[in-house]
């Protein structure tokens, strides 16, 4: 669906070099801190900025050959951009109807009603949650094949986040050929939704793993100085000095459970894995 190879973009204090792939029927997450390069990657995919190198293939076409017509198959949410806040939902309906050939007006109206979004209010006066839901609804209402969602859950409370993720699950269930690329700096959003995750840091992908594997096989080993000296380090990805000794990130939890039963092993959450990948030292 989408394949990026060494996509490069250089700014004064930041340079991006990103490779990732989104397979058909899968939800792929891109996690990274603020300023790690998520939005730059998204903007380059969408042709909003010119890249300084690398290739992007989207829905089987090179980005240069990806025409206006092909954008009909994309559903987009950008974190810091959307329709003018001076428009109401009622204003947007004919706009979308004329922009997207496959705009599903009955579905859109039904969802607007379901979420209780006011149709005659300027969207600049909407709450953060309402704005976020509307953005997603716009992205999923024209039978898109690929959703590209940049921080769609930013600033939302837990309930609103859940509703939003539910909308995305429903979208995926309707057609198994659909795919989603979603970014967030809140890992718990992506944990339950994504099939695989990419981690981006300072413009580079530092990790790619299936979410299941990440949650089942990654762990943090909490060891003292002596244990650290004795431990088999072949499956340690990163380590970090702590007050009690060391904390070590592994992607072979079972191996350490079986071979080092005396050490404390904690199931790694995605946040912990990210922190270790960024702050930890590589062996």
């Amino acid at each position: 669906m989408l394949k990026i190879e060494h996509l490069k973009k250089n700014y004064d204090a930041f340079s991006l070099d990103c490779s990732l792939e989104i397979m058909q029927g899968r939800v792929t997450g891109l996690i990274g801190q603020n300023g790690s390069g998520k939005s730059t990657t998204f903007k380059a995919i969408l042709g909003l900025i010119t890249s300084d190198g690398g290739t992007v293939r989207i829905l089987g076409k090179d980005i240069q050959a990806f025409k206006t017509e092909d954008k009909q198959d994309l559903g987009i949410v950008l974190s810091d951009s959307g329709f003018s806040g001076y428009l109401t939902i009622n204003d947007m309906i004919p706009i979308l109807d004329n922009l997207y050939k496959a705009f599903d007006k009955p579905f859109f109206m039904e969802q607007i009603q379901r979420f209780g979004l006011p149709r005659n209010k300027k969207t600049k006066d909407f709450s953060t949650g309402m704005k976020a839901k509307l953005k997603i609804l716009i992205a999923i209402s024209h039978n898109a094949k690929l959703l590209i969602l940049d921080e769609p859950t930013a600033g939302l409370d837990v309930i609103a986040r859940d509703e939003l993720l539910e909308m995305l699950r429903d979208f995926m269930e309707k057609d198994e050929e659909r795919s989603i690329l979603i970014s967030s700096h809140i890992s718990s959003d992506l944990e339950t939704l994504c099939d695989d995750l990419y981690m981006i840091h300072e413009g580079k992908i530092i990790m790619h793993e299936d979410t299941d594997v990440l949650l089942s096989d990654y762990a943090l080993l909490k060891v003292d100085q002596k244990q650290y000296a004795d431990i088999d380090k072949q499956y340690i990805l990163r380590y970090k000095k702590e007050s009690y000794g060391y904390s070590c990130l592994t992607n072979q939890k079972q191996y350490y459970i079986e071979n080092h039963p005396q050490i404390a092993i904690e199931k790694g959450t995605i946040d912990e894995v990210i922190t270790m990948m960024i702050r930890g030292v590589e062996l």
Partner: protein
Amino acid sequence: MKGLLIKDFKLMKAQKHFYLLIVAIAVGMAVFTEVSSFIIGYMAFIGSLFTLSTISYDEFDNGNAFIFSLPINRKCYVKEKYGFGLIVGGSSWLLGTIIVLGAGLTRDHNLILDTLMTALMVLPAMLMILAFMLPFQLKFGGEKSRIGIMGALGLMFIIGVLIVKIAKSFSFDLVSMLNNLSTMSIGMLNMGAIVIAVVALLLSYKISVSIMNKKEF
């Protein structure tokens, strides 16, 4: 493109009170004064300015990034802005002419031909303003382009005065020559001006497309 046009008309709806006020002022002037060229020019000018304000709306809160991720391209966006400017400017020009005609007829003056001539003279000015302002607005955005436009208008005024002065120093009175032109020659001159304005608009469109193609959002 139709979607974008609808968007801009919907955005203009937010300024409908302002527009109605402009129409009311124009009607007031038409009833109480006889400055027909000013009224038509005023309506056409304000009308064509709406396309600039829709560009500001698009830029506000980084809205352009989302607009250009929709199934449109940059050329289509520019085309729509010129189209919108022509539609709203043209309709306002027409409305201004109708207002002047309406007020003139109620005063029982036979002003139809004069008013139509005036209206035709305003038309190339409106096209030139669009041709001039749109690339400025697209390149520099709302704030900076205002300064640029003021500077450029000032420059045009100075050039105009200089041309008249220089002509005068060669004992060639441009102003009185224009005043003494027959209706026929004025018509020809006007047609020429319209042709030049249309060419300028096409050139301006090309420049705007290349400005937009270079932009990053």
